[in-house]
């Protein structure tokens, strides 16, 4: 056969019936492509291996990435705090507690809690899966003993515990190690039915928060930064909503902003990380600073010019906020206040900006934003200073919930 007689090579494109881009519509897969971790957890429970800590009533069911439902408890929650929030941005955790108190929800703020220690795990790797799983399960066992269900404040704890869950589900040898450790600690081997992040609680509470809103946010433009460890590290059980971004991006944070009547503004690096880096933010901050300002803050400024950027994780608030100060020396286009969805929601319901939201621990100037929210920040700061003066004079005293 000469070359001219050769049959043309037939590419299989016609049979594939791929719709043209213009005709395509985003649709969830008919079947989730991932395993159902709850099914596996309950199988292990039935086999007598572990006990599954049930999500307590009342709970709200929401859609996750591939269309499965997830239960988010409203109360009886064991607040698994975040070291970066409590240590460096204390108004973050305080606002979560304040919201729970405003709704009269029963919760527990334990002293018998360690961090997930995953900041260190991702920064230095001076740990191993058995230790990390044991730390997680020690906290969960304590939550069970206290009679509450864990609500995770930190995005990294949330992502890491989901990693731990996958490892425990698939590795009997790891389960044996953790079982041995917990036996030495005299603790039960329990794992929660769902790993629930506080921002998921804010999300399911958003309409109720909006009903109690006393400050008008309609003139406020917000950019949202979703935390990588929330929606990229174990993608399965992050919340998605067909009405937000057509279900293609996580609905977290954007949902509450919309419910509160503020405007969510998009920008091109929405999917990018904040630059935290775990090790970098502590000992190699030139990287974190460069990434946060050049890839995130400047993009937001140029494309959306927001009044505030909201996020839902410890490291993201820290990196996006604290990175802005010194870059002014290089004439970078910065100056966006940064806070969490919990602080934003609390402010909408009338929380004090300093006594509750503790905004004086943040870096970027919040005053223009507070004015836009209708808050007299000078008066509010005077009220904070009066409290501080009183506390200074009596070294054994503390600000109480009743006073705020």
């Amino acid at each position: 056969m000469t070359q001219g007689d050769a049959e043309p090579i037939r590419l299989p494109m016609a049979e594939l019936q791929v719709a043209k881009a213009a005709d395509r519509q985003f649709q969830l897969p008919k079947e989730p492509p991932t395993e159902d971790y709850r099914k596996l957890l309950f199988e292990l429970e039935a086999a007598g291996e572990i006990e599954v800590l049930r999500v307590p009533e009342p709970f709200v069911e929401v859609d996750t990435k591939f269309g499965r439902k997830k239960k988010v408890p409203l109360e009886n929650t064991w607040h698994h705090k975040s070291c970066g929030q409590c240590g460096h941005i204390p108004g973050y955790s305080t606002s979560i507690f304040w919201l729970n108190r405003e709704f009269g929800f029963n919760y527990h703020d334990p002293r018998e809690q360690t961090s997930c220690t995953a900041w260190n795990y991702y920064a230095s790797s001076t740990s191993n899966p058995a230790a990390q799983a044991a730390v997680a399960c020690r906290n969960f066992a304590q939550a069970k003993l206290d009679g509450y269900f864990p609500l995770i404040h930190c995005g990294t704890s949330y992502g890491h515990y989901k990693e731990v869950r996958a490892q425990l589900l698939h590795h009997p040898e790891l389960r044996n190690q953790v079982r041995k450790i917990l036996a030495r600690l005299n603790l039960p081997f329990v794992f929660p039915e769902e790993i629930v992040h506080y921002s998921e609680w804010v999300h399911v509470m958003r309409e109720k928060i909006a009903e109690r809103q006393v400050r008008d946010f309609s003139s406020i433009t917000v950019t949202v930064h979703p935390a990588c460890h929330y929606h990229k590290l174990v993608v399965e059980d992050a919340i998605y909503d067909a009405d937000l971004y057509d279900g293609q991006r996580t609905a977290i944070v954007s949902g509450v902003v919309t419910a509160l009547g503020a405007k969510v503004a998009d920008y091109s690096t929405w999917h990018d990380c904040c630059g935290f880096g775990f090790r970098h933010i502590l000992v190699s901050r030139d990287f974190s600073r460069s990434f946060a300002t050049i890839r995130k803050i400047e993009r937001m400024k140029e494309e959306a010019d927001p009044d505030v950027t909201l996020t839902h994780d410890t490291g993201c608030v820290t990196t996006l906020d604290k990175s802005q100060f010194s870059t002014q020396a290089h004439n970078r286009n910065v100056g966006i206040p940064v806070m969490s969805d919990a602080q934003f929601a609390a402010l909408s319901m009338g929380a004090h900006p300093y006594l509750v939201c503790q905004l004086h621990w943040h870096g970027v100037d919040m005053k223009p934003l507070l004015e836009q929210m209708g808050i007299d920040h000078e008066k509010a700061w005077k009220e904070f200073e009066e409290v501080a003066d009183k506390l200074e004079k009596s070294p054994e005293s503390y600000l109480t919930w009743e006073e705020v």
Partner: protein
Amino acid sequence: MNPIYKDARYTEVPYEEKLKLFDAVKSDMRYPHELHGCYECGICVAACPSARFFDFSPRVFAQTMAREDVHSFYELLNDNVWDCSQCFSCTCCPRQNNPGGIITIMREVAVNDGLQSAKDALQAYSRIIYKVMSTGTQVSPDMLQPDFFPDWGPDVRDVSLNLDVWRRAIPPETMHTVELAWDVSEKTRLELYMIWKLTGNLEMIENVDEGLYMILEEVMEELLEEHGYDIDDFDNILED
């Protein structure tokens, strides 16, 4: 086996030594979940923050491991592994790879082997390891010092000047501390120390920072003894 690249580094390190570490990564129980092969498409690189500011590429990690290139692996282990941000943006990989997860394992192998490059990378970080291992919380209010965070602006100075009063001016009782993020109970710290001992975590620290190891061992021994425990009763169960 000789390295195949003209500009190969670490040619003085025996192949067997490199292979030992390569095999340690490959035999980790997490490894089969993290790498399934690589299209070399570079999607992970586009999503990677570290790739933008360092000479760093998650694709190179995936490729190197998939190709079983032991020499290049050893270079990455020493020269690149600590640049990763551990953000896991690279999980957008169309082959369901997790280059960041491969890197977590590689770092652990580097620490366990006491590589000098790991020691160097973690040198400035040891006080943080001390904090999290001894208290159960990683960062604390008293770390907010202007000399540690000079680039974070004047609010760090304000916080450090007013630290005691400002911490007491926070409503949740668990947060009235300056040395810990929250007040971790002694019982919980004790249980944490047992976990570190039972999982050989202290030995990991010994591999990279002997001084830190000795301090941590002493702190833990003291609390355990106070509660009637002998630190030597908590052998590493992972060696069983």
